[in-house]
């Protein structure tokens, strides 16, 4: 099964051996988890989103069309799951902070698994980065997370999101510019 492509494994799981889908999970669980973490900013939310994404993918195996890559198909499902969780959390009226422009932002809870060797300054900077990424619009956040957490190429992001290659590059450029503005606006305060 190691020699099979993702598409061959999906076909095998659809027809003869549903548990062959486990190989798909083994190949893509880390990257999908990274994508969900980058989208949601919280480890527990990312775990839930990753689990739901793979379950949804398994249930919709028969709907997988061979013209798209399995990775693109999984990414699309994972992004949808992340957006669903974000909408669910937003409807629960969790903590929001307003930025200077009046936009509502989610506070990203610092991960308890941060390395203890990090200084307070470093931890605070990471918190700000996490917050700045969370404040990005969804379409910009997607491309940043896919590039940084999943290490996808422009071409892969283009296929996953079904966008032209130039649009992907343009969105990355815009996302980095906004991150720069937010990080420059909020200096790191060390208590």
């Amino acid at each position: 099964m190691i020699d099979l492509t993702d598409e061959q494994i999906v076909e095998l799981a659809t027809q003869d051996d549903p548990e062959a889908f486990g190989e798909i999970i083994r190949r893509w669980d880390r990257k999908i988890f990274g994508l969900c973490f980058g989208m949601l900013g919280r480890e527990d939310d990312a775990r839930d989103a990753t689990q739901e994404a793979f379950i949804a993918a398994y249930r919709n195996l028969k709907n997988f069309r061979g013209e798209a890559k399995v990775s693109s198909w999984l990414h699309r499902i994972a992004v949808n799951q992340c957006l669903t969780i974000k909408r669910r959390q937003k409807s629960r009226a969790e903590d929001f902070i307003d930025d200077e422009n009046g936009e509502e932002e989610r506070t990203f809870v610092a991960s308890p698994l941060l390395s203890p060797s990090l200084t307070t300054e470093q931890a605070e900077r990471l918190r700000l980065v996490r917050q700045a990424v969370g404040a990005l619009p969804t379409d910009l956040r997607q491309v940043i997370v896919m590039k940084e957490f999943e290490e996808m190429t422009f071409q892969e992001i283009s296929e996953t999101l079904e966008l032209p290659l130039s649009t992907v590059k343009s969105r990355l450029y815009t996302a980095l510019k906004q991150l720069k503005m937010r990080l420059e606006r909020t200096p790191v305060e060390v208590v």
Partner: protein
Amino acid sequence: MDCGSGESIVAYIYDEATPSERRNFEAHLLECAECTDEFAELSNARFSVFEWQKEAFAEIPTPEIVIPYEKTRSGSESGFWEAVKAYLGGFAVPALAAAILLAAGIGFIAIVLTRGDQQLAANTVEPVVNVPQIAVQPSITEVPQVANRPEVASEQRTNSVEREEKNKEIETSPRPSRVATQAKAIKSPTPKPVVARSENRNTQETPRKKPVLSDFEESDDKSLRLTDLFDDIGAGGR
């Protein structure tokens, strides 16, 4: 190179520029301070995200994904059954069992009714009346002989009287009803055991002779007849 090309900066930052594009960009940075400043700012923003990913996420273990294959196997089934099961929910099995029982019950009732109709049709024939088997033909055993002898004549005279009496009995006896006749016909489709004349004559066991009028000639009849009496009276009165 155009200073306003942000795509070139991004491609260079993420190391996805072609060799020729990279050379051109590097050459442009040497000539354009504005693009160099912008490149530096975007690189720092990108590095912050990279650092966040490395510090906050890299050490987090990958969660174990559990797929309930038995419960979610319906996703691989035909859409129709999946929709049926989704509609019935947890009552899919009981509903299916109830449908099977209902179909079996309807089939059983149909069979019972069909057989009942057949039996009713078979029983529409009226009960057979126990009518004794009455031979239509008189059971006169002896066939009147044609011999011209006085002792035969007297014997024939006796036979004629007996024949008349027998005929009277037949007339007064209850006739078999049409229904009974039909019942007998239905009940016993086999022909009645009427012995044929030829067989009767040839049998040695019971030489039952029956009168056969077609074989009886008037000229051979030597018995006393009423017309003969009237003739005698007429002749004597003169």
